[in-house]
């Protein structure tokens, strides 16, 4: 079956956050109420009960004035997904339409996927001691419905459909935007990591939206999954109980943060 994707056009997004709530409605997720810390943005990132969020970026240009950029973030549903490869339990799989889904029955909560993910999307849900994340509403899509976020988007920023068709739409849109005031408009998700099932039409370069410019699977993870895991996969649950794993994860985490922290400084921070 052809890949189905979400096309998200930032130039049509008004940050109403209908997607953020519709996701909770459909996926039966409780609210996670955290205090205001200086930005309209609800959480720093997605969390175990928040599969998608809108991020807010405020900036100012001496010529064009104030800008307020919004971007919807959730699982990218990479065509070649690191989490699928990394999970020691085989809890991840691809749905027939190309969504990356996670089976909580198999999950042991090791969070290895979180570190493997170039976008750090899978999140730990303490209540169940498991990982959770966006499924691109695979249950809806398999029945011919659109994902809850795309279905609710009032302003038409989100479109769900055949990935190839959406890429064509995205290209046309970028062409239009470049001619109409956004010379740096670009597509994101066409080629990144071999292609994503979340395609973005951006009005500016990806770094302005806190997206990794050239995302890469972690080298350490690569080593681990290509060499260690196939032979010693059984070690991981074992190691989880002991300190060896925490050594590994700490290492992986440290490595990862270093990588992100320098590559993508966000202009002006959130708002």
């Amino acid at each position: 079956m052809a890949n189905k994707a979400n096309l998200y056009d930032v130039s049509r997004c008004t940050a109403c956050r209908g997607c953020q709530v519709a996701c909770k409605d459909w996926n039966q997720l409780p609210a996670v109420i955290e205090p205001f810390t200086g930005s309209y943005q609800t959480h720093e990132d997605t969390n175990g009960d928040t599969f998608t969020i809108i991020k807010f970026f405020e900036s100012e240009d001496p010529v064009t004035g104030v800008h307020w950029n919004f971007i919807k973030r959730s699982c990218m549903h990479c065509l070649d997904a690191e989490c699928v490869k990394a999970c020691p339990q085989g809890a991840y799989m691809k749905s027939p339409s190309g969504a990356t889904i996670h089976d909580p029955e198999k999950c042991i909560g090791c969070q290895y996927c979180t570190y493997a993910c170039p976008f750090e999307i899978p999140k730990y849900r303490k209540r169940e001691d498991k990982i959770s994340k966006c499924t691109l509403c695979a249950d809806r899509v398999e029945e011919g419905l659109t994902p809850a976020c795309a279905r609710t988007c009032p302003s038409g920023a989100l479109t769900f459909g055949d990935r190839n068709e959406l890429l064509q739409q995205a290209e046309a849109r970028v062409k239009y935007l470049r001619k109409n005031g956004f010379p740096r408009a670009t597509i994101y998700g066409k080629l990144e990591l071999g292609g994503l099932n979340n395609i973005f039409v951006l009005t500016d370069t990806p770094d302005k939206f806190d997206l990794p410019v050239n995302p890469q699977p972690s080298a350490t993870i690569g080593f681990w999954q290509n060499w260690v895991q196939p032979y010693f996969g059984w070690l991981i649950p074992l190691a989880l109980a002991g300190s060896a794993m925490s050594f590994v994860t700490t290492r992986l985490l440290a490595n990862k943060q270093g990588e992100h922290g320098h590559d993508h400084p966000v202009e002006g921070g959130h708002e």
Partner: protein
Amino acid sequence: MSPSFGRGVMTNHIVDMKNTDCALIMGSNVAENHPISMKWLFKAKENRGAKLIHVDPRFTRTSARADLYAPLRSGTDIAFLGGMVKYILDNELYHKDYVVNYTNAAFLIDDKYGFKDGLFTGYDPATRKYDTATWDYKKDDQGMALTDPTLQDPRCVFQLMKKHYSRYDIDTVCSITGTPKDKYLEVLDTFCATGKPDKTGCIIYAMGITQHTVGAQNIRAFSIVQLLLGNMGRPGGGINAMRGENNVQGATDMALLFHIIPGYIDSPMNTTANKDLISFLKAVTPGAAKLPVTNLEELRAAVKEGFPNSGFKINTSKWVVSMLKAWWGEAAKPENNFAYDYLPKRDEKKNYSHIAIFEAMHKGEIDGLFVSGSNPVVGGPNANKEQEAMCNLKWMVSCDLWLNETAEFWTYQAWERPVKNEKVAEKTPADIQTEVFFLPAAAVYEKEGTAAQTGRWVQYRWKGADPVGESKPDLDIIYDLGKAIKKAYAGSKRIEDEPIVNLTWDYESKHGPEPDIMKVALELCGYDTKTKAPVEGFAKLTDDGATACGCWVYCGAMTTLPDGTVQYKPQKRDNKDNSKTGLGLFSNWAWCWPMNRRIVYNRCSVQPDGVTPWPGDAERQLVRWDPLALSDPTKPELLGSWVGDDVPDFLKPTSPDKPAFTSPFIMRADGKGGLFATKTLMKDGPFPEHYEPWESPTAPIINKIALNPAAKVWAPDEQGTSDKYPIIGTTYRVVEHWQTGALTRNLPWLAELMPNMIVEISEELAKEKKIKNGGEVIVSTMRGDIKALACVTKRFKPFNVNGKTVHEIGMLWQYGFKGYATGDPANRLTPHIGDANAMCPEYKAWLCDIRRA
């Protein structure tokens, strides 16, 4: 809008925004407060190349998606728009044919009318009121207005307008509004381009326009701009008043307001002119006051004959009598003037608006208060005062889903304040002797009924879930309350109790004691008193008791289908667009008043000849005169009718030989769009003039008057001055919450999105006041203080007002101490002063100071 066009409604509708060439969004933050509008505005942008302009003190999510953003200081809209009027006139950008034929531009004005130093003729400073006698047309012996279609006569409206706005040059305007000149010019250029006959532009406004001491005049300024540019009554044009509550239009239609009775008829007063039915009808029917009629029969005959300066409201007697018949049934008879005496007559000298209610309550003049899904402790202006006023109540009935801040105004929590302030009362529950009755109401989808959305579409909502616990639909609650009150008065023979004893109140359903909503709907939409069949439209209402109709504008919403079944049209769900040119009228979806006209004043969408579309704009023509069509299928002898994709907002048989053929604004006595508001239409001037807000950081710039001279000052000692309070404060809503937040701060998912009360301040002011982003601040005014979290942002910038730097801060209107998301109500800061006409409180511009907590 009513003084300009005849009705105070959103003229177009949300889907129609896709037809615009340019949208001027001013005093509204549509992306946040009416998010679905953006869907249609984006379509206009993408399909028509439309431009979106946002004018607002603060850069919002609407600005983020606009093509052009221009800041303006809160409370300076008339200056901004007055400059636009001048720009249109100076550069001859107006739509000439439209202006000459469809507006009162050519009408000559009384020689005694004048304007000087910020005051119009007839002002009495002692009463702060105008005698509006000179604000009138020059008339001939027959009482018909004199005109000069060349627009050259110095006493014609066009020339007087030109003179009035000659002072609003670009530099003066920008010195008042603080708008950068280049941005202002860009706005003028972009929007005024819609004056070309093949272009239309719409204005979108909301409470950023109305909540000022000059609120109604702000809208008048829009009206003048839109009439000059020829944008009214056409797809993609109009003035889109974005209503804030899901059925505020309906509640207004039903007249839950002191100054009107259902269907926008002035409510009767204790005046001699309103003393009985015939006097009242003569007073409220335009052009009837001086008719030599002394009873209903004579009036009926005069109406049949027709009389000048009446417009469509000539039928008022039919609407009034049908309403009296609906309310008092058998007891409303010709012999007792259809029970006209039963209607309460307000004191002509008194104001009964929101502010007045709480001022009276504060003085102990009110004992009992009903609160229906409202939350004045959060949403009332000067909320500290309103909360204090409530302590004087003997009893209060609150009907809501939640124990909101108003229902709990007597709790310890309700009286907690961030700092001690001698002006604010300190109370404990023991001090408050008010008995409070809280009635739990069902949620919107736990019941059924209709709501009129902002574009007047009346849509049905079906019941999708059971009410929680013992909560009940409001309909059941009101019905039960009415029954209990009637029971309490049962058997009374006192004449003063007749309005209750004789009130028709029989809505019981067949299946149980609860009311049958269709019985209520039938009475509301009107029925034949003999057959009990629905009346098919307000043209069929009578003033002899043969019809009963609770609210004439809804007449026609219920109909008998050819197969004999009855249809409630708001339930219609045919979502095919009936417009041949794809205008998105959706005339078979639900029903809209009046008579399912989706775009009112649509006579303007065709040239004066009634046949030819505006040059280059055939696709946006809504109606036309068809000499071969029938206006009434039962009268084949009467050839010729107005027809079109939209229901003509025009009397169908009006043929080219009639003078009214080119008078599109049928609810106005003269049928023309009002550039000049005559006589009593406005209390504060026939043309909008800029005045400063009650609390302003600057002395008057364009004239010598600070505050709107006709605005009522309730409490002069509550006015703050710029030496103590140098910063402009304003309030607004965000997409994540709704109004006072009762219906959203109690929802965890929405509390998550906007968890705290915030104050937005510029980086410049934050630096000056050493305020940290996310840190706690105290905001203070003459009325009180609140604590909130600071949101330091690039989206607020200081204004340059007449050479002086002025800061403005903004805060959410929607917080209180109850729910999952809590914070101090911003309205503890806002003043008790309102617009001179509509009495909307000035929530949007006042003075304050801010400091780190």
